[in-house]
């Protein structure tokens, strides 16, 4: 196991990451076939850093984190391989009880719909209290104090009164905050946020993202943000992992991914969103990735993206791309470096070294530079 870890994390010696996932693979055995939900995903997370996992439906982003949390029902799901080291232990090998102890107290999760975590028939305060007391030996009174503190930290006004409210008495944004409060109750080392702001209005979303960032700084948590929204990613991620059809297709820091994306799928994703930041391009026709993401029961051979890729060439349908590393930036595409730059320039009109200056638009139009 140690060998594998060294290979995938050359920059930091093993054991130093807060979370280290290697070659995670999860499949579901249903009566209509085998669903390969996750196939060889690796990433790591350090304290105080934010990893964003980006993908569309069917990319495997949710299942990856759920596997880590032990939330996959074991039939029909099965961990096909990989390791997930957290504080010296492989989460994938822990027993149900051990996982239960870790969930909530060391690794917490928040979701898109707060009502999946908040029971509508119990008061918010009581739910937080119950959660605290199931992991720690403290009195109800102390726990309630903590709950009020938590509500205050997440920005809920009049926390001492609202602690006795029911979830339906909160607005959408408040409910999210309450869910975050509950997740933080035991000071977890890692917070996994699965599309936490997708259902919220954009002004509320901005508040919640600010909150998450602030809390992360204050508590030094590691944050894993699962989302499909590239804007959110650009704003808060320290590292970005792009997934497609259960596989990793690209990983890097925000500047790498947004200014120097290597994988055609990433190009397609970036080109699919209206580029309103550039006056010239705001009404340009969007890039169309033809076709649809594949069914995870029949992932295409070779590169899973090849049927939809304009740049595919001969080996793409038979050879599964290995992750190609350049510094901290890796991608799974068989094209060589020159071809990648050319493709990227052709599709997105971005050259090698863009920086956010007003003249960037001019640099873009100046075309490619190899």
């Amino acid at each position, binding site marked *: 196991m140690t060998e594998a870890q060294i290979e995938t994390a050359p920059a930091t010696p093993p054991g130093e990451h807060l979370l280290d996932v290697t070659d995670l693979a999860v499949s579901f055995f*249903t009566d209509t076939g085998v669903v390969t*939900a996750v196939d060889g995903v690796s990433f790591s997370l350090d304290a105080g850093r934010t990893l964003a996992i980006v993908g569309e439906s*069917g990319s495997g982003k*949710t*299942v990856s984190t759920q596997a880590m949390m032990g*939330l996959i029902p074991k039939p029909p799901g099965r961990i096909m391989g990989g390791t997930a080291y957290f504080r010296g232990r492989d989460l994938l090998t822990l027993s149900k009880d051990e996982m239960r102890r870790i969930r909530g107290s060391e690794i917490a999760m928040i*979701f898109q719909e707060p009502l999946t975590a908040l029971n509508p028939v119990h008061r918010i305060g009581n739910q937080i209290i119950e959660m605290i007391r199931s992991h720690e030996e403290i009195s109800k009174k102390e726990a309630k104090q903590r709950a009020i503190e938590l509500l205050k930290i997440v920005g809920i006004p009049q926390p001492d009164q609202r602690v006795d409210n029911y979830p339906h008495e909160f607005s959408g944004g408040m409910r999210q905050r309450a869910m975050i409060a509950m997740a933080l109750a035991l000071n977890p080392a890692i917070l996994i946020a699965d599309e936490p702001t997708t259902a919220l209005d954009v002004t509320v979303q901005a508040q919640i993202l600010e909150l998450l960032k602030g809390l992360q700084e204050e508590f030094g948590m590691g944050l894993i943000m699962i989302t499909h929204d590239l804007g959110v990613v650009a704003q808060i991620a320290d590292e970005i992992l792009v997934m497609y059809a259960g596989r990793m297709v690209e990983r890097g820091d925000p500047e790498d991914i947004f200014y120097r994306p290597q994988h055609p799928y990433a190009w397609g994703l970036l080109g699919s969103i209206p580029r309103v930041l550039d006056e010239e391009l705001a009404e340009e026709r969007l890039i169309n990735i033809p076709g649809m993401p594949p069914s*995870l*029961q029949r992932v295409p051979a070779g590169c899973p993206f090849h049927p939809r890729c304009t740049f595919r060439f001969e080996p793409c349908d038979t050879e599964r791309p290995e992750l190609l590393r350049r510094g901290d930036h890796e991608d799974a595409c068989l094209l060589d470096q020159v071809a990648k730059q050319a493709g990227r320039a052709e599709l997105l009109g971005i050259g090698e070294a863009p920086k956010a200056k007003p003249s960037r638009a001019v640099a873009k139009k100046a075309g490619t530079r190899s």
Partner: protein
Amino acid sequence: MTTPTETQSGHPDIGGPSAEVPIPDGLLEVASLRGEFWRRLRRNKLAVAGMIILAVIVFAAIFANFISRFPTDGFNPSEVREGPSLKHWFGTDVLGRDIFVRTVHGARFSLVVGVSVVSVSLLIGLTIGGLAGFFGGKVDTLLSRLIDIWLGFPYLVGALIIVTALGGGKFALVAALATFGWVTIARLFRGSVIAIRDSEYVEAARALGAGNGRILIRHILPNAITPTLVYAFALVGTTIIAEAALSFLGYGVRDPETSWGLMIARNQGQILAGHSHMVLFPSLALTLTVLGFILLGDGLRDSLDPRLR
């Protein structure tokens, strides 16, 4: 192109990410509505049992005249009160009539009554329930109160009164039972209609310019009818019992018409005399038939379950 994938807000039937059940990120390939329906029905063992039972009963009912070698009526003094034998499979009754023949004809009778009653009930119930659910407001209030009042009447007593008032016979029986059968159908259907009338596809039809009639018949009816249909199956079963009860009490049909209830009533005295076969077979037939309908109804409900939505 037929491979569906979940929409990003979470596929409705699978739901969003939850702490309990993670969703495989890819949906499975789905077959046509009809194919899926049959597949699930076949897998439900109880439903299959129900179907088999009913198939037998229906077969018997249809081919009653060909199955039996003996007449349903008549006086046969030489073969009175015989137990089951190779000649008379179910034995004979006090008048020497072959019980097997009479039971089979009883099946025909019961099915005819059952289906007729439920058909009429459906006609009335769907109309009233549909109107109440679709139009809402005062119409709904009025019709709902009507339904509530109607529900207040005791079923059997009421049916009894009507049968008597109409002078007995098959027609009276059907009328009496249908008078009370439509009520629950109306309620069920009304509920379904209310649930569906605000659906987006109904709104879409309106936006296209569809009138109420088209919306009711083309959009609401097919989608709302499932629970009612399932109930209707069970209703056939309970109607048959009700008919048997009425006949048992003497208010249903009379000889020489064969009804299971009548057979049971007439021959109950024979149980103590040791000739319980006269009551046993019609009772068994009655029980199995009702069971068949209920099982099939349950199976239908599970297979028609819009989990595909």
